[in-house]
């Protein structure tokens, strides 16, 4: 069975697979290619299309030493793609530095997934993704990653959401590495909306920082940052979040919740609201706690062992963070949450 067939069978529309610096697969459904969708290695895209060069490091601060080893996706105007476009990056030796650029043109609607992973020999992955949504464009971006414990991971995502556009990002990790630093920031123009959602279970002894920033630059823009994080024994988790309102009528909300399953774990939330305009409305709520004994015993009295009950409660906790997730991705994400909940008590 060809890759295209496999992709079609899985309901996908395009696939980009890169191991270390080698592009192993690059597939686009014919119907999309005919309508002008481009999926290319970034190096090729930069040399072919002069306008792409102008986008390099516009949505993210420039990082020295990062080459053009990554993917370029361009979605032409007026396309509605319900099935996911999938990106896979695998690091299997030393260090992998990836730079991706995604451009969704006016009025298009896209679901994009990324599946990043490492093997035991993958020492470090650094991924930089810039996303540009033009007027009225909508992008749902679901990241499901899985890292070996030894891999050091740095992920930065910079997003510009054009007027009336919409960006939602769900980030979760099936296996979390010992060291992870993630930083997502989105700048919203007039009447644009964004949701940055993180569902994370930090592995034992790991050190994790997941930052999320929204800049409400346009009048009437709205954004929400949502985080559900679980820390097991010895894990240290930092969740800095920030919403900055620069325009009238802008609204933002941060909801950050942490669950500590072990007394020697550490969770730190740092929600910052910054209003530079009197006509904006910003709110936040943050809570960190452990599983309540009353809840635990309620479930145990229904027949669940302590581990099963804890796992159910962890799953329920994480599940509250998936509002707004595209329906088509729900089964995959729910399966991930079940695995995470089991592992959290394992």
């Amino acid at each position, binding site marked *: 069975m060809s890759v295209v067939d496999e992709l079609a069978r899985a309901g996908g529309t395009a696939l980009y697979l890169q191991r270390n610096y080698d592009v192993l697969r690059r597939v686009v459904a014919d119907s999309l290619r005919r309508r002008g969708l481009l999926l290319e290695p970034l190096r090729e895209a930069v040399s072919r299309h002069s306008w792409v060069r102008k986008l390099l490091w516009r949505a993210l601060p420039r990082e020295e030493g990062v080459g053009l080893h990554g993917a370029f996706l361009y979605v032409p105007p007026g396309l509605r793609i319900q099935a996911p476009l999938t990106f896979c990056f695998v690091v299997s030796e030393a260090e992998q530095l990836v730079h991706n650029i995604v451009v969704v043109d006016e009025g298009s609607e896209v679901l994009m997934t990324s599946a990043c992973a490492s093997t035991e020999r993958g020492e470090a992955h650094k991924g930089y993704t810039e996303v540009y949504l033009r007027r009225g464009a909508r992008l749902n971006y679901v990241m499901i990653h899985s890292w070996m414990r030894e891999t050091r991971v740095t992920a930065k995502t910079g997003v510009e959401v054009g007027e009336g556009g919409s960006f939602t990002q769900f980030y979760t990790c099936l296996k979390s590495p010992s060291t992870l630093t993630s930083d997502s920031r989105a700048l919203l123009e007039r009447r644009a909306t964004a949701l940055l959602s993180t569902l994370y279970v930090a592995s034992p002894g790991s050190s994790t920082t997941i930052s999320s920033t929204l800049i409400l630059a346009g009048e009437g823009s709205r954004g929400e940052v949502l985080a559900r994080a679980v820390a097991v024994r010895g894990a240290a988790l930092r969740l800095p979040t920030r919403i900055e309102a620069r325009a009238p009528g802008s609204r933002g909300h941060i909801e950050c919740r942490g669950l500590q399953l072990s007394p020697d774990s550490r969770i730190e939330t740092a929600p910052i609201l910054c209003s530079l305009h009197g006509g904006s409305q910003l709110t936040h709520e943050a809570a960190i706690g452990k599983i309540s004994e009353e809840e635990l015993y309620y479930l145990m*009295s*229904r027949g669940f062992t302590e581990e099963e*009950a804890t796992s*159910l409660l962890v799953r*329920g906790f994480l599940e509250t963070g998936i509002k707004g997730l595209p329906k088509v991705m729900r089964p995959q994400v729910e399966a991930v949450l079940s695995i995470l909940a089991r592992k959290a008590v394992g």
Partner: protein
Amino acid sequence: MGPNGSGKSTLLKAIMGIPGYTVVEGEIMFEGRDMRDLKPHERARMGIAMAYQSTRPIGVTLSRLIRELCRLYGTSPADVSGLGLEELLNRELHKGFSGGESKRVELALTILQRPKLALLDEPDSGVDLESIRVVGKAINRLVERGAAVLLVTHTGIVAEYLRRVDEAHVMIDGRIVASGELPHLLREVRAKGYSGLAGGGANERS
């Protein structure tokens, strides 16, 4: 039956093995086995299930809890179709339920555990008559399927809807002060009030 604070719920929680309700004197025997050293989930898996006075506020959706219970006990959501839970399925348990909803949810979860002994804590308190009728019907079905039911109530209203009651007792201050046929006891309680029975009747037991 018994007034508020007479120890009815405490008795059920002690049977269920809820922490804080430790038995300091006497035994709890179930199918010939002393239950006192068993954890709540072990008692549940032996066939004891409890419907609490109200649903505990936990962060799990009702549909997921039902799914997990069905998996654990080999039951089906269809087993509780008569309880009208459809609109409640996607609600998280910590979001809360009205009194009537809460009673139906608790009873449904109990039924899905396929209990040999169902402990029902005040299934008729603080709810409308229609909810009590629905709950009563479900209790009758539970009994028809062979479950023993230990039901506590301070109003006795649900008794009107039960087809079969083998034993009835009045409990006051942790002691059984009267026992007998349910209709007789109900008449006594209505005529004298619980305080009138507190002095002890012919069938007093501790």
